[in-house]
């Protein structure tokens, strides 16, 4: 089941006009921001499908940038996010793509600064709910049924065991897990779906483990 909480249906509280094109876009931007871990210096945002056709009128552009600035769906500052980004020195570019994607509301966000880059593809499935389908070229197979943790790590022995041990310590049960890497010994990504909601303490402890670059939770 993609929608699990009654507040997925009665909610979110948001700035109009479109839950999928405005609130969903803000959430995609905010997940990218949170995975990047800091405010980016630049962002290249590509819209596909219905996003590409209608983003101007729906404020999809201001919403996704609002998300990149860490604003929630109901934050009034969303309306002026483009000016705010400009004044904060964040340069933004938008691209309308013609490619047909699996989902009609798809956005690709590439953000970065002098220390790094992040590329994320998100889809807005309706009512403000989103799914992240790709991160830095890694396809994510999140069912959306459970809270998830994303762990970027170096491809070394013991990295996975370390993460599993911490989760066990906090009595968190893994429902589904995937590890993907681009090349042996290089960057890898663990996608872990768990049954329990994840405390910040768990994230901190995971982040402190050796060979772990970044830990982010995706919870609704």
């Amino acid at each position, binding site marked *: 089941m993609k929608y699990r909480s*009654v507040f997925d249906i009665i*909610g979110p509280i948001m700035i109009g006009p479109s839950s999928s094109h405005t609130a969903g876009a803000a959430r995609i931007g905010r997940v990218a921001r949170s995975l990047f871990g800091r405010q980016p210096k630049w962002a290249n945002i590509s819209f596909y499908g*219905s996003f590409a056709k209608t983003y101007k009128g729906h404020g999809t552009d201001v919403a996704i940038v609002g998300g990149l600035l860490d604003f929630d769906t109901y934050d009034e500052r969303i309306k002026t996010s483009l000016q705010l980004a400009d004044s904060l020195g964040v340069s933004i570019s938008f691209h309308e793509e013609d490619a047909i994607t699996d989902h009609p509301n798809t956005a690709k966000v590439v953000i970065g600064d002098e220390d790094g880059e992040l590329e994320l593809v998100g889809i807005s499935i309706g009512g403000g709910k989103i799914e992240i389908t790709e991160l830095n070229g890694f396809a994510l197979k999140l069912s959306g049924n459970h809270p998830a943790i994303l762990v970027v790590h170096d491809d070394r022995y013991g990295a996975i065991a370390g993460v599993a041990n911490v989760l066990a310590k906090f009595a968190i049960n893994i429902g589904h897990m995937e590890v993907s890497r681009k090349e042996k010994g290089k960057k890898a990504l663990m996608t872990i779906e768990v049954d329990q909601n994840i405390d910040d303490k768990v994230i901190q402890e995971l982040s402190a483990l050796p060979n772990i670059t970044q830990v982010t939770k995706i919870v609704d």
Partner: protein
Amino acid sequence: MFRNVAELIEIAESTNKKISEIMIEQEMEFTGKSREAIFAQMDKNLEIMEQAVERGLEGVKSVSGLTGGDAVLLQKYIEKGNFLTGKNILDAVSKAVATNEVNAAMGTICATPTAGSAGVVPGTLFAVKNVLNPTREEMINFLFTSGAFGFVVANNASISGAAGGCQAEVGSASGMAAAAIVEMAGGTPDQCAQAMAITLKNMLGLVCDPVAGLVEVPCVKRNAMGAANAMVAADMALAGITSTIPCDEVIDAMYKIGQTMPTALKETAQGGLAATPTGRELEAKIFGVPLQKGD
């Protein structure tokens, strides 16, 4: 966890509880939060809805200038007393319009289940409130009952206009509202499902063709008619009328219609009202672009 309307009704009937209660219990189980915390969160949503209705009834104008002010016109019309339908229906319609006008004006709203369809549930709730005089708790329960039916639609079909057309948005919202009205009026869980089915049946095939791609024309008026549809269907269900096609099958039909609907009619602004000469002119005017998509 209920997966469809049949299961929802079965749980409610076998435990002798209301639909809202089943939704609350499921939310408690899923989130691990207390009843108080869940109630407080829904109370906040209700507050946002109230504020949006009030703001809309004072009169708003959207950024594009396409919509706004109709809720006020309708309230003034009701006051004159010469209406042909009914006061409660028109009250629901005006409050649904009020909410959606606020949405189009980039105001703060609560999506139910989406922003484009955010008018119907609060619109009917605040109209029915004046007839049934519910407690605050009963008003919050209205939202849980709406949520329970929306939950089934979202998981078995779609609540996205881009995926399923406007039947998935205003159609779902109207069905959700109808079911919640029935519960508030003292109907049975089964009558709630009948109201949902009757409403959604009458919104099947509804395309999503926003003019200039904006969620305001025809969306504001579709929220109006969705609210009217919900009010009538609720009365029908309370009168004992049932839907020949069971609620779950109606939801499934809606899903399949959405899948076979052409992309031009699913929130792309390429077909329907968006592709009319006036629709194209408005698009060109609002965005200052030449008429290039004209067909």
